[in-house]
């Protein structure tokens, strides 16, 4: 389907539903008002999708909250401009009238489906209460409408879902419930704030398809807030690129992607990782730094009268691979597939069966001192740099801490080494005595990388290390990793769910599904000749940042994903990997 031309001609004729003029939102600070959004104007027509794209802090979410009238009072408020929905100016309506519009004429869905539903209320209650808040229908009628809404979002077993609670549903199912709730009363405007950012790529594809289908059916106008230019290209008719509260550029999707005028938009587009754009990489050695043979990790689930384990989570099942010195080995798969558990097992944070050898030494054979020594050779960089840095230590102390723990060099030498590492990762030495909160997200991740480098390890495990970063920051951090790899000959185990990033930086790739590897091989083999259906689905699901790209409709996933939990004594069927030529291993189809 060609998203770029979709509605493009019809949208001009469609009636206007929302008009934002000169919108300015300010926050009151000790030094006076500071504007978060400045002089923003746009119109939205029926059935149209307007994307507001930009990096974190660009004011896109604040704009959404301003339209909803949900800005956090009293500090943040609209200081100028108007927001017209039909004839009424939302910035001047009293709260009671604004409330009657929310949920009925303007609805919103949020980024985090895991936390956006109330955990103690059933799905049915949460759906019916929003229906009953705006219409005078009976409880039974509201329930019928709720059921219809769940059917509209193609949720399996809708009757049963009404009685379930949010924790019993997966992330993708919860986001469907959010969409059902938002669209139950057929609002004119739907604001979708990063609706698929927290979802797996195949689930993202389904949710995007769903939004587009419902929009066509109901004629809803959508404001899509996202940082992902791939999603923009697939969904939007028009785009506003925002930077620090201002609209940098506005235009039709085709125009923005083909001829971006402003440097900011150009940079934004250039930074997006694209499939098929990976540069050829230098040959790596054949010397093995890490070897996993038949690694199994299972976690017991307790139950019954005496609290004995009755079932097991089969997190990792018979996984074998090697990482060679100086190469980047990528482990890809969706949430819950066991990729992070492998990382934890490799540094000895979870017990495992099978063999894990780091630099020729088996983890299982080592005593405490041996393990500590081994940890010098293998370091981890985690996803959330803010959570990984102790807020009460200075950056200098944080970077030098591994040296302190392993009792290496004097205090003065440690500080000199920390200063050197700061420069290596592109920070300045005068920032050594600052605390983590004084840095931006990208800078914090650089600090984490510097800390991992302190012990000059042979292997760095990067567990979703760039996933939380803005695309432009992500591109720079990836570049840094590659420079460091060339300089120090470090091997990377790169764990990611993002196929485009993996395609750009890896030498070899393993695809995981439900604890097992389904396909592994060189980057060219996996991306050029994907054999396993799951690998293909992962690759096809990635949104392409090009509105002219015509996507072949992928078959919709039927049923729910299988569970990794099995009763004691039972387990998943073990997949057998078959070599289909020069090290390209594929699980034999069942």
């Amino acid at each position, binding site marked *: 389907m060609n998203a770029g031309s979709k509605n493009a001609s019809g949208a001009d004729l469609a009636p206007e539903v929302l008009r934002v003029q000169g919108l300015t939102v300010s926050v009151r600070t000790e030094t006076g008002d500071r504007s978060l959004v400045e002089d923003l104007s746009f119109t939205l027509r029926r059935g149209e999708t307007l994307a507001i794209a930009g990096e974190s802090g660009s004011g896109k979410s604040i704009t959404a909250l301003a339209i909803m009238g949900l800005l956090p009072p009293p500090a943040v408020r609209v200081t100028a401009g108007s927001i017209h929905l039909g004839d009424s100016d939302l910035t001047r309506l009293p709260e009671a009238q604004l409330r009657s519009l929310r949920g009925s004429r303007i609805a919103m869905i949020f980024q985090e489906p895991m936390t956006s539903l109330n955990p103690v209320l059933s799905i049915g209650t949460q759906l019916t209460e929003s229906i009953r808040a705006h219409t005078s229908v009976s409880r039974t009628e509201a329930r019928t409408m709720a059921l219809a809404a769940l059917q509209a979002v193609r949720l399996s077993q809708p009757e049963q879902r009404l009685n379930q*609670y949010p924790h019993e549903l997966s992330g993708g199912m919860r986001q469907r419930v959010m969409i059902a709730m938002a669209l139950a009363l057929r609002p004119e405007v739907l604001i979708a704030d990063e609706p698929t950012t927290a979802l797996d790529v195949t689930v993202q594809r389904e949710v995007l398809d769903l939004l587009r289908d419902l929009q066509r059916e109901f004629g809803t106008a959508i404001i899509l807030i996202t940082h992902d230019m791939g999603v923009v290209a697939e969904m939007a008719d028009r785009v506003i690129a925002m930077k620090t509260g201002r609209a940098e550029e506005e235009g039709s999707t085709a125009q923005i992607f083909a001829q971006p005028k402003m440097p900011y938009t150009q940079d934004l587009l250039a930074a997006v990782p694209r499939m098929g754009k990976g540069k050829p990489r230098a040959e790596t050695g054949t010397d093995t730094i890490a070897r996993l043979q038949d690694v199994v990790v299972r976690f017991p689930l307790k139950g019954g009268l005496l609290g004995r384990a009755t079932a097991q989570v089969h997190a990792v099942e018979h996984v074998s691979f090697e990482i060679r010195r100086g190469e980047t080995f990528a482990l890809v798969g969706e949430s819950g597939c066991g990729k992070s558990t492998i990382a934890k097992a490799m540094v000895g944070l979870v017990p495992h069966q099978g063999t894990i050898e780091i630099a020729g030494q088996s983890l299982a054979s080592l005593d405490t001192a041996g393990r500590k020594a081994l940890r010098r050779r293998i370091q981890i960089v985690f996803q959330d740099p803010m959570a990984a840095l102790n807020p009460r230590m200075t950056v200098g102390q944080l970077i030098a801490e591994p040296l302190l723990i392993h009792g290496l060099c004097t205090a003065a030498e440690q500080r000199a080494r920390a200063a050197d590492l700061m420069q290596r990762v592109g920070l300045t030495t005068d920032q050594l005595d600052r605390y983590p909160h004084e840095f931006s997200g990208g800078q914090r991740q650089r600090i984490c990388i510097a800390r991992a480098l302190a012990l000059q390890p042979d292997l760095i495990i990067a567990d979703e290390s760039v996933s939380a970063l803005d695309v432009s920051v992500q591109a720079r951090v990836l570049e840094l990793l590659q420079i460091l790899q060339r300089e120090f000959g470090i091997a990377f185990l790169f764990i990611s769910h993002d196929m485009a990033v993996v395609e750009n930086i890896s030498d070899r790739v393993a695809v995981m599904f439900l604890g097992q590897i389904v396909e592994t091989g060189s980057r060219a083999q996996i991306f050029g000749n994907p054999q396993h259906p799951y690998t293909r689905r992962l690759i096809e699901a990635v949104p392409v940042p090009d509105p002219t790209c015509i996507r072949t409709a992928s078959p919709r996933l039927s049923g729910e994903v299988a569970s990794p939990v099995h009763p004691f004594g039972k387990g998943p069927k073990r997949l057998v990997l078959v070599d289909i030529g020069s090290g390209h291993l594929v699980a034999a189809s069942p």
Partner: protein
Amino acid sequence: MAGYILRRLIQSALILLGVAFVTFFLLFVLPADPVRQIAGRSATAETVENIRQQLGLDKPFLVQFFRYLGGLVQGDLGRSYLQKSEVSLLIASRLPATLLLMVAAIFCELAIGLSMGITAALRRDRFTDQALMLTSFVTVSAPQFVVSLLMLYVFAVKLGWFPIGGYGTFRHLVLPAITLGILGSGWYSRMMRSSMIDVMRTDYIRTARAKGLTRARVVLGHALPNAILPIIAMIGIDIGVFMGGIVVVESVFGWPGIGQLAWQAIQRIDIPIIMGVTLVSAAAIVLGNLLADLIVPFIDPRIRLR
């Protein structure tokens, strides 16, 4: 569920055994002599020895303890040294009064504490919030007997709205219950305030507001059930602190409960009563905690008891 309760009850029995041992040991090493209390100042050394042998207090510690334990498993809490009556009967006659006061007081405590906490959270950093938190600070730090006497003086002696002391009618209950309620409300209001502030910041509250629900529905229907979860666990733990407060309040208001019984027994080192009251209080605390844990799954569907 049944398995869970059974497991918890077995645990409770072990806890009570531990409490019995520690209390018995502390009373054993206490420098005061219970026999002197029974015999009186003028008794001869011979009389004292006789009483000591009669009560078995001349035996080694472990013998005494296991003899007491032997009675305990048969439901025998022993005889009071001074009141010449079965301890179990003494406690049974006073337990209803204490339970009544306890239920009324916990109700007051929660009504005062939770409404203060919710109001403060919703009016955060404004005058109402600061005034309420100052009040809660005063109630937390004020000594129990001072507040009790003050309430008694103002509302019973000066204003004469309530009887000065005693037991029997609803009017007798009001002052001690409200006094205990005020004393305990400070903790609850502070806990509730911070819990409510946390919940009001969550994504699902934003969702509820985005749905266009009324403020009352957002606060009472969405925020309250989530904010109250940590408070329920606290009620279970709080019964312990509460039993301490009840001793003082019952004595001041002349409320014939086990707190008063304990107060008299401690002054005269009446070991069987002290042991009995301690075990009953400990049982109340343990069962209160179990009850709190059993209530939580009804509010929070994520919690399953195994």
